[in-house]
Structures are given as C-alpha cells and as structure tokens.
C-alpha cells in the first residue's frame, strides 16, 4: 500500500510537470527546460524549510514563485526565437541551472541537500494541486486569454493581426508554466527529503514532453492522462523499467504515425461527454 501511494505521489507530481510543459506549449513554445524550473522550485522551497524553518505550504509556494521569476527572465529572450532554437535555449537553461546548483556549497553542491522535512500527505497535496490546475486549465479554455493562447499556437502572425498582444501572452504562459514546474519541484523535494542536481537533468525535461505528446496536446486532459499512464504502467511492468527511455522513443514514433494528436484528443472528449449524458 505504501508503495502504491508513493507511486501515486510521483504520478501526481508528473501530472503537474506535464501541465507545466503544456501551458507554454499552447502558445507554440516548446520548452525542454521544465526540469530546470523544477530544480529551482525544489531548491528554493527546500532552503526555505531547511535553513529558515518556513512551513510546507508557503515554502512550496515560494519555490513556485522563484521558478516563475526565472521563467519570466528566460521568457523574454524566448519571445524572439522559435522551434528548434527555443528547444536549444531551454535545454541550455536546464543544464546551466543544474551546473549552478552543483557549484553552490550553500545548498550542498554535487552532494545534494538533505534533511528536508518529509511531507506525509504529499499524495494529497500533489492531487490537490492537480485539481486546482484542472479547474484552471478548464476555465482558461473558455476564457479570452485562453483563446488568445490558442490563436497564437495556431498562427502567431494571424493572432497579432487580430489584435492579440502576443509578447504579453507568450511571456505570461511561459512564466506561469515555470511557476507550475516550481510547485512540482517543491512537492518533490519534501517527498524525497533529499535533492541533488542530478535529479533534474535534461532527460526529465524530455520525459515531461513525452507525457504530453503521448497523452494528447489538443486539450489539457491529454498531459494528465499521459503522465498517469506513463508513470503507472512502467511501475507494474518492472522488466521494462530499464528500457523506459527507449520505449518512450518508440512510443513517440508510433504515436506520430498512428495518432499524432495523442491518446486523448478532442474526439475522445466528445465521445466521453456523449456517454456520460446517456447514462444520466
């Protein structure tokens, strides 16, 4: 049971991370740097708890804010570049964050930072955050800002001509995405009790992208489903754990060919809604 709960907690954190990738993705910004923002959130919140004795909730929130500020700063140069160049920029950012933490003795350097107070109710907090995010994304979809995000993701030049302030919108999406990643990092830090720079490598950034692409990118239910499925399935099929990254690669190729919109597309949502209505 403990084991199941711990996997569930990790799955919850992974959902948060997949959604943190998904928000800027709606505006066409593909970030490989979410693990970097996660690291900032994890370290900032851990320092708050360990060095200053700040309680759990404010510590995690502060971690999110720190990551959000970093997102804002990185988001500005990110406005000017697209596609593969943005990928490289965010990937470089993730690595730089890691290297910086390795070199800060105050937070333990390469040896990592231990003694972080354990949060017994991590599962609860993680899924509480997921619920809040779900409501946020649901409302965003119907909102003016959400439609502006989608328009930018669809065609940036056209969105600009319609009158969308694309700089503000993209920067907002990027910073809030970083904030969400920071929250994920804070929750992780207080679950593991110990963090080290190695935990936030670029491969994790790739993993979060795989969650979203596999689960679906048309609607926020996609990343949620992707993170859940890809966290639980490998846990129960222990033999494939080792080959996880290889399987992710294969999975992505197959998805691109068979179902590029991901498992949970708008058609699936429509189908589920219809079924639910019939039951009622």
């Amino acid at each position: 049971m403990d084991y199941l709960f711990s996997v569930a907690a990790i799955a919850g954190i992974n959902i948060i991370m997949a959604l943190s990738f998904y928000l800027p993705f709606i505006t066409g910004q593909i970030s490989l740097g979410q693990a970097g923002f996660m690291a900032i959130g994890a370290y900032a919140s851990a320092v708050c708890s360990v060095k200053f004795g700040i309680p759990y909730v404010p510590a995690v929130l502060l971690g999110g804010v720190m990551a959000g500020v970093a997102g804002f700063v990185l988001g500005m140069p990110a406005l000017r570049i697209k596609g593969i160049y943005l990928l490289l920029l965010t990937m470089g950012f993730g690595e730089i964050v890691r290297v910086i933490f390795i070199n800060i003795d105050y937070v333990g350097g390469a040896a990592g930072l231990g003694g972080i107070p354990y949060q017994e109710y991590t599962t609860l907090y993680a899924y509480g955050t997921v619920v809040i995010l779900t409501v946020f994304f649901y409302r965003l979809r119907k909102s003016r800002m959400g439609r502006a995000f989608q328009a930018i993701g669809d065609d940036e030049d056209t969105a600009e001509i319609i009158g969308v302030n694309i700089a503000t919108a993209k920067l907002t999406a990027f910073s809030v995405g970083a904030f969400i990643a920071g929250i994920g990092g804070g929750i992780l830090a207080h679950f593991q009790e110990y963090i080290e720079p190695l935990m936030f490598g670029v491969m994790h950034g790739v993993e979060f992208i795989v969650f979203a692409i596999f689960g679906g990118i048309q609607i926020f239910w996609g990343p949620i489903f992707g993170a859940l499925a890809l966290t639980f399935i490998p846990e129960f099929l222990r033999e494939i754990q080792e080959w996880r990254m290889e399987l992710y690669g294969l999975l992505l190729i197959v998805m691109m060919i068979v179902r590029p919109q991901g498992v949970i597309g708008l058609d699936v949502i429509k189908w589920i809604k219809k079924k639910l209505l019939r039951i009622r």
Partner: protein
Amino acid sequence: MLSIEGVSSGYGKILAVKDVNLLVEEGEIVVLLGANGAGKSTLLRTISGAMKPKSGSIIFKGQRIDGKKPHLIVKEGVVQVEEGRGILSRMSVKENLDMGAYLRSDKDGIMKDLERVFQKFPRLKERLNQNAGTLSGGEQQMLAIGRAMMANPKLLLMDEPSLGLSPNFVELIIRAIREFRDQDGYTILLVEQNAKKALDIADRGYILETGRIVLEGTAQDLLNNEELQRAYLGRDAKTRED
C-alpha cells in the same frame, strides 16, 4: 484619414519601401498596384505595425501610429486582411469570427456585426462549426474578411484578397469591397494584382515600383494611362473582360 509621409521600411538593411507618401481619405477605396516585390505587402505590414518603419511617419486620424504595437493599432480601427488568408486553421469558423472581435467588449455590437458577416457571406453560416482549415480557398478568404469585419474596422487594409480565387469568388469579393465603402462606411486600402478589377471599384490609386511611388491619380486617370495599360492592364484592357 491615413497619411503616410516619407516612409521607408524593409528587412535588415534592404529597404523594400523607399520614401513613400500616400494619402487615404475617409470613405475612399485606394488601390495600391505594383509588380511582385514592389513593396506593397511591406507597406501594408508597416502600417499595421507588424514592421517598424526605418524613417517617416504614419498618421491615422491625426495620431501617429508608426512604431506602435500591432494590437494597439488594431484597437485604433486599422485592421488588416492578410495575404494568403491567414485564418486560424485549427479553430472552427465560429471561433475564428469570435477571435475577430477579440479587442471588443460591446456584446450587442458584436452580435450585430456577426449578422452582417452572415448576410454578406451566407456560406460562412452554413459552415459555422466546421474546422476553418477544411474550407476551400474562397471560403477561407471570406472568413478572413468576415473576421476583419468583426473587429469593427474604420480602415481596412486588404492584401491581395482575390489572389488564387476562381472568377466567381473574385466577383463576390470585389462586390463585397465595393459594398464596404458604399454601405458599411469602411475606408479601404487595397493591394491587388488584378489591376483592372481593382481600379474599376477604386477612387484613387498609387503605382509602386521597386519601393517607390511612380504614379498616382484617380482610378479613371490610371485606367486611361497608356503606360499603365501596357504594364498592368494588357493592351486592350478596356475591351477585355479580365
């Protein structure tokens, strides 16, 4: 209404538009003619704020708009219809039209304008929930124009609205543009390849060649200009139905 004074603009060091002066009075259709690469689209993009002019000033209703952000220029009532339609292909027709009114909050006015779009382009009403990417070329052009109507424009910048359309659609679009001036009270700056058709409905025109204005005048004068007939209209333009 719109006055462009000594504007130069371009990408990097190369100027696609050089020292252009151009005037659009309220209630006019002004057509901008020129060969490919003459700088027509660059000029439109500079007016709409997508590009910043290197020098000169652009004045709309007594206010300088050059250097302003595009969304602020749209707010002033200067709305562009892009070349190559520029629709949001992953959104439905309805969502595209809604996005046209992105900067507005007057619900009644928006509803009224939506009805006007449907009146003008009934086809869009039939396709309301269809994905915009699945529309035909002509329908996409209607949608792009309809979306611009939703922004409640005062000045409409239209970049080659008849490009690549079948003759029927060209007729429909040209008629729509004429009605914009005569019924809807829009002022229009029109870039067109189809010189004869454009001059037929326009009040005045400018000819752009390698970034400079080389000729300007009333539409009638331009239609009768011999040099222009040779260059853009074909020798027997007056008798041929283009």
